[in-house]
């Protein structure tokens, strides 16, 4: 069985049909790309997958369980984590705390422990620190742990969003334009990191990206979205040489 099975997904905003009859099947462990022109509905698909928007039609199955109707926090706990196209960090919190917020559900102690710093508090916090630093280390961000997230350079903020998403221990990771605003060097490094985390954390990744070098470099399968509908699906070689895709999206 595939990890994610989306069938006939659609959503309308008033009169605007932003996404219509969208289907996608992602096998476990796959690195999957969702591409398409501006305004095609890619971010809207992510918002439906993560419960930010309630789809008007269709079904979303993760490992066979239905996600439609669950709220974002519940969907996160079922194993879907994401990053945002317009970065959404906890700006007034430290880099370390940004990751620790995402460890919230995995490491538990009571409010009484929290208020008194007794009981499981010390041990659990130490374990959280260690885990958070481990994750930051994957992104080479350990030395930033004590900085405020809003003081990070742009590229590092994007990486912190991925680190934070990973900390929720997802099965499926959704990345919305992870390379946006990065220079070619940073992008190349990011490609390695994405591949690395897929293998190390044994997760499945669906990413939205406009940078074709990144898409062709790491994606094993692509779906092209255009005006809210699926244009085509297949391996990168097939999809990117499709004349329809070239006219709708790639140009030239």
């Amino acid at each position, binding site marked *: 069985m595939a990890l994610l099975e989306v069938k006939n997904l659609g959503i309308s905003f008033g009169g605007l049909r932003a996404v219509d009859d969208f289907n996608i099947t992602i096998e476990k462990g796959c690195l999957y790309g969702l591409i398409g022109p501006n305004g095609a509905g890619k971010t809207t698909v992510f918002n439906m997958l993560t419960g930010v928007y309630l789809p008007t039609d269709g079904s979303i199955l993760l490992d066979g369980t239905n996600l439609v109707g669950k709220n974002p926090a519940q969907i*996160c706990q079922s194993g879907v984590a994401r990053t945002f196209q317009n970065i959404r960090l*906890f700006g007034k919190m430290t880099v370390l705390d940004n990751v*620790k*917020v995402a460890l*919230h559900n995995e490491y*538990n102690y009571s409010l009484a422990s*929290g208020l008194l*710093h007794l009981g499981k508090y010390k041990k659990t916090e130490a374990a959280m620190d260690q885990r958070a630093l481990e994750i930051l280390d994957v992104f080479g961000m350990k030395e930033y742990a004590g900085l405020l997230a809003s003081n990070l350079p742009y590229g590092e903020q994007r990486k912190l969003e991925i680190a934070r998403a990973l900390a929720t221990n997802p099965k499926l990771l959704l990345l919305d334009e992870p390379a946006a605003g990065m220079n070619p060097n940073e992008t190349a490094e990011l490609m390695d990191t994405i591949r690395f985390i897929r293998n190390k954390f044994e997760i499945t990744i669906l990413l939205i990206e406009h940078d074709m070098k990144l898409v062709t470099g790491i994606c094993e399968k692509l779906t092209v979205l255009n005006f809210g509908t699926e244009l085509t699906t297949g391996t990168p070689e097939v999809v990117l040489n499709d004349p329809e895709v070239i006219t709708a999206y790639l140009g030239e």
Partner: protein
Amino acid sequence: MKNKQIDKQLIKNLAIIVIVFAAIEFLLYGDLLTRQFRSLLIPVCINVILAVSLNLTTGFLGELTLGHAGFMSVGAYTGALVTMNLNLPMIIEFPIALIAGGLVASLFGVIIGVPVLRLRGDYLAIVTLAFGEIIKSIINSLKITNGAMGLSNIELHGNYKNFGYVFFLTVITIFAIKNMVNSRQGRAVCSIRDNYIAAEAVGINVSKFKVMAFVVAAFFAGIAGVIYGHNVGTLKPTTFDYNKSIEILVIVVLGGMGSIKGSVIAAIILTILPEMLRSADEFRMFLYAVVLIAMMIFNSSQIKQRILSSDIFLKLKKTKKEA
């Protein structure tokens, strides 16, 4: 390494607390305080508790609320009714009153939590303002609270003679809120303030932690109310109107949103200041307002930053440390 640093900080804080406490007790026992100052000790503690707890909802959760005095009044009346109806020694009935006052206030924290989940910003500020006024009018019309006449002859368990007790409660409150902020619950609360969409996306139950922040803040405001009633000996519904809520909010804003230390310092200054200005008579409120504006400007200006980071200040700090 980090743990050691925290412990060092803790020892330093405890040392400050012990010194402050010893100094005040010395002044009290030596009868060295004027009556005016002596009468300020408990109100300072009450305002510290109120400000620190309001900071949880306003500074850390980031919701502007104007109903904190409502929680205080619920606690005050509950506590007073407990000690007036129990005829037990203070050592037993006062803790019961404190806990009862805190718990009933936090129950109201749950009630106000409901609109909190639906409203934000200015809307929430107005709803909480109305909430405080509703509590006031309920207390005004109930028989058990003796309506507009209020309660009197409340035993003075919380006056300056029991300063040690009240001081201890104040310290507990400061530590509890500080601890909470540095716990997984507090991080969840702060993450909602910074970006609630991202908080949801990493699995934080936003509703739960918003209500939790209100419940904890209301609990301590309730305790402050219990102390208030047992310091003054009388309670009237009008004591806890929106003026009181705004007074607490001013302390929090002045001390810095999300700064517990700032709340404590601002609470001390803004409680003592009006009394100091008493001699100025009719200019009192005018001077109070001027000082307030001056402090606000100072606080938000670069001057403060420059003073704090200037060579002289750093040297002073260093020599103080070496001494």
